[in-house]
């Protein structure tokens, strides 16, 4: 295993210390937990936005803490949902009396722990609401799944609900914005290589030199399909077509796109993919209002990418364009 790591069991703990050491004016760690919150929080008069999930997706989630986005983020062990106890502590610490919106990605672990935490917090008379992001079109929503997974579209949810909360939206209004993004965002991802978790120290799946995985999630799980190596253009086309046809975008509509790196992919390659994604949208007469390219939600050192498309109207454009000031996202 080739990693910059000390004892693998200190991975998350030391990473969080490294984050607060980098951003002491922005981030504060709740004592004895793996929860980071805004150094200047709770913010009076504002609905709090919290998120959380397993670690290994950096800069997700804690990198998005700050003005216009998250008030708190709970980090579990690598790829493991945080415990309900820690989620509850986060909710309590972030509430400023206006209620707390939990942005949850649709994994049973995350959902169950957030549900339990919400129950705990409600017993302390905190208003808690929840949105569950499920943007991954690789997984068909059928009898045979627990719904679709939540992946990179979550970043747009964070951004929009964060902006709505910063603008003084009520808990209901903020939640409604979250639902609106969720209704309009779709993602699909692929991997060139497996990632290596620090505890296991080996690839989580074996992939031949000429093989790739399509339809991966963000936890190092294999995808829905294994195929032969493809060119960047073919990859871009496969992901984009799947996303667009699920979302049913039409000519003339405006979208935000994300070409997201899985952690080990050079930025240059993401731009090569973006080139084709934009060409495909152009061909269909779909207008890219904004294009994001970078590592927003990763899987440790995995090589690969995902393509996200989100349909936007004036309300969402205003929210996605609104001021934001976090370690990983600034306007």
């Amino acid at each position, binding site marked *: 295993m080739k990693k910059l790591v000390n004892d693998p069991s200190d991975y998350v703990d030391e990473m969080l210390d490294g984050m607060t050491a980098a951003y002491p004016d922005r981030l504060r760690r709740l004592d004895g937990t793996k929860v980071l919150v805004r150094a200047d929080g709770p913010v009076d008069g504002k609905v709090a936005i919290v998120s959380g999930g397993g670690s290994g997706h950096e800069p997700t989630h804690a990198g998005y803490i700050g003005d216009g986005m998250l008030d708190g983020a709970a980090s579990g*062990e690598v790829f*493991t*949902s945080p415990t309900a106890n820690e989620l509850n502590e986060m909710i309590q610490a972030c509430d400023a009396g206006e209620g707390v919106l939990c942005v949850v990605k649709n994994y049973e*672990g995350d959902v*169950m722990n957030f549900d339990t935490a919400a129950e705990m917090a409600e017993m302390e008379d905190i208003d808690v609401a929840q949105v569950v992001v499920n943007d991954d079109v690789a997984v068909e929503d059928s009898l045979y*799944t627990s719904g679709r997974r939540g992946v990179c579209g979550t970043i747009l949810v964070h951004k929009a609900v964060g902006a709505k909360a910063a603008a003084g939206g009520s808990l209901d209004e903020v939640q409604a914005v979250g639902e609106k993004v969720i209704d309009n965002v779709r993602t699909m991802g692929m991997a060139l290589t497996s990632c290596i978790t620090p505890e296991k120290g080996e690839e989580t799946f074996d992939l031949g030199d000429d093989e790739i995985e399509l339809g991966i999630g963000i936890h*190092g799980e*294999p995808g829905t399909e294994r195929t032969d190596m493809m060119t960047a253009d073919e990859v871009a086309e496969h992901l984009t077509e799947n996303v667009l046809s699920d979302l049913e975008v039409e000519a003339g509509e405006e979208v935000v796109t994300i070409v997201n790196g899985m952690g080990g992919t050079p930025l240059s390659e993401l731009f090569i993919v973006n080139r084709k994604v934009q060409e495909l949208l152009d061909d269909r007469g779909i207008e890219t209002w904004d294009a994001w390219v970078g590592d927003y939600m990763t899987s440790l050192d995995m090589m690969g990418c995902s393509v996200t498309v989100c349909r936007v109207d004036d309300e969402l454009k205003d929210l996605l364009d609104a001021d934001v000031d976090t370690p990983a996202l600034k306007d």
Partner: protein
Amino acid sequence: MADESVQREALIAAIENVAARIEAEKSTLTDLDSAIGDADHGNNMHRGFEAVVEKVDEFEEMSPADIVKTVGTTIIGNVGGASGPLYGGSLMSASQELEDGITAETSIAFAEAYLEKVKDRGDAHLGAKTMVDALTPAVHTYKKSIEHDDLPPLTAFAKAVDAAERGVEFTVPIRAAKGRASFLGWRSVGHQDPGATSTLFIMQEILKTAEE
């Protein structure tokens, strides 16, 4: 059944054996989870039982029901993931059935409550390739062996372990409908469910302790 202090000692011994077994099988469980999940089930279970074992001293003062409840809350507080609330939450809630001590009757009630809570939290039906597939045959067999066949609890429990084993094997050829494995679609077929496997390991250790 035996008096409270004997029960307590047996329970503590069982917990320690389970913890040791989970530690020994950590990489087996993680490897199973690599194939169709996210490669952390062994670590998750190990983290939970490590924390449980650290509390063993406190158990000396507790009733069996409180011990089981504490095991549950400790798992909830240390595991996370899907297995944390499933194992931890179900233990916590089913522990109520043991408030009058451990008898044949209360153990059946506990087993049923535990299974119900897992199904309730996880919304998983039988055949969804989860721990429910190991639990269901075990609980059904245990109940039937005592209530209908009049077998002693230990014999009934040995049958239940056999049943759980068949449940684990049953998870191999079916397609997952719950948990992370469900995201793999048909590719989940042919792999054994990690959570069903850890459930079996736990039951095997309880049986082993009881037989000693």
